[in-house]
């Protein structure tokens, strides 16, 4: 049976891991390759590395890092951050990434999805969406949650699916950093509307939250950062818990 996936997310700035809380206030949390290897050994199913560097120099450092990750880690990993055009995708896939996650660039120019899909296939194209709920309406945001777009979450996710995206990674800005659980009502609605896998992000604080996003949110995978980085939820313990509660999980 296909297993639900547990995905630690590592934010990378100038080649080092950091973790943002509510998208600001960065804290240092170690060497990305060592951390990725440790997660892989603990049973993480995939890894996501997000480049939050703005400079060209930082981008070059990130590409080199992707090469090191690909050489040393034997589970799939996705990279994102600063991907604006096909050449960025080509550079990162050539360095050894399995998938790329696109966010603001896809909202600004949705054809980027079609281009990635026709050049490299659906399976490499993860469309990440940051959205915030206000009075029951979910709005997509650009630039790491700083710029509102007026675009509705469900409309945009559906369009990305239609354009050939391989997965949707949805981060609820209302839930991110709160440790109060994932946005399961919205996730459930998204899952019902999509024909492709859905990754839940934002809000993980306890093992129960992961269980809830699989059972109530109908998510195919759950992504989290700080609960893993600071050892609050060890992955083997999480997987044991999920398995004990009847979730199909890789052990």
């Amino acid at each position, binding site marked *: 049976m*296909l*297993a639900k996936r547990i995905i630690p997310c590592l934010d990378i700035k100038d080649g080092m891991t950091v973790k943002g809380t509510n998208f600001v206030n960065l804290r240092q949390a170690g060497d990305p390759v060592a951390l990725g290897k440790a997660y892989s050994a603990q049973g993480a199913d995939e890894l996501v590395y997000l480049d939050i560097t703005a400079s060209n120099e930082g981008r070059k450092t990130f590409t080199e890092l992707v090469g090191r990750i*690909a*050489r040393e880690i034997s589970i*799939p990993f996705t990279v994102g951050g600063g991907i604006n055009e096909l050449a960025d995708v080509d550079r990162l896939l050539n*360095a050894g990434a399995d998938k790329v996650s696109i966010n603001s660039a896809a909202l600004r120019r949705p054809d980027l999805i079609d281009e990635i899909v026709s050049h490299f*296939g659906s*399976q*490499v194209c993860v469309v990440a969406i940051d959205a915030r709920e206000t009075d029951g309406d979910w709005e997509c945001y650009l630039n790491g949650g700083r710029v509102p777009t007026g675009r509705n979450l469900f409309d945009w996710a559906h369009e990305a699916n239609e354009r050939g995206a391989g997965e949707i990674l949805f981060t609820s800005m209302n839930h991110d950093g709160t440790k109060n659980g994932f946005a399961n009502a919205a996730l459930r609605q998204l899952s019902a509307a999509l024909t492709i896998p859905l990754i839940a992000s934002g809000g993980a604080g306890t093992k129960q939250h992961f269980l809830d996003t699989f059972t109530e949110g109908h998510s195919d995978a759950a992504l989290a950062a700080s609960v893993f980085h600071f050892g609050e939820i060890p992955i083997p313990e999480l997987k044991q818990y999920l398995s004990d509660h009847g979730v199909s999980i890789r052990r």
Partner: protein
Amino acid sequence: MNVAIVKYNAGNIRSVINALERVGITPILTDDPDQLRSADRVIFAGQGEAGTTMAYLRERGLDEVIRNLQNPVLGICIGMQILCRHSEEADTDCLGVFDADVVRFRPQRHEDKVPQMGWNQIADLRSPLFEGLRPEEYVYFVHSYYVPLCEQTIATTDYIQPYSAALHVRNFYATQFHPEKSGDVGERILRNFLQLPQS
């Protein structure tokens, strides 16, 4: 050991090279027929679309070269599908090494997402390729098309319905999943392939 990886217009060959390097092998990436024929092992891997992949192989005569290889060959993902008779993807006639046709997943329930993406279990293991594995081990799959169960099936898996996770005939082995991305289990499968007796 001399391991050749078939060079063609597919994505993600790099990850196969990396995986081999992790087990101490430096492979060559080549489309030279003589190098492919003389290698101790040939790996035909990657992600791609059946129609454009076959057109590329035919243009360069690689279709005949691969079909007639006598050394142990491992097809991975699109490599396995191309080694079959026909693929529903772009209605493509393939190499015909395996007596099987490739078809698209047809979701039965809403939760059946296509592509299948993630870790699934392999069972009914019937090959030295899986020596030393526990039953129902998890490996990593990413695909929208699959090979139904057939006489050449050497491992099964289940997504929407049971189908072939791996095939074998003569010197040809193939996996639908990605051993190069399947952690320690995948590494064991690659080592097993490298240790198969020369046919």
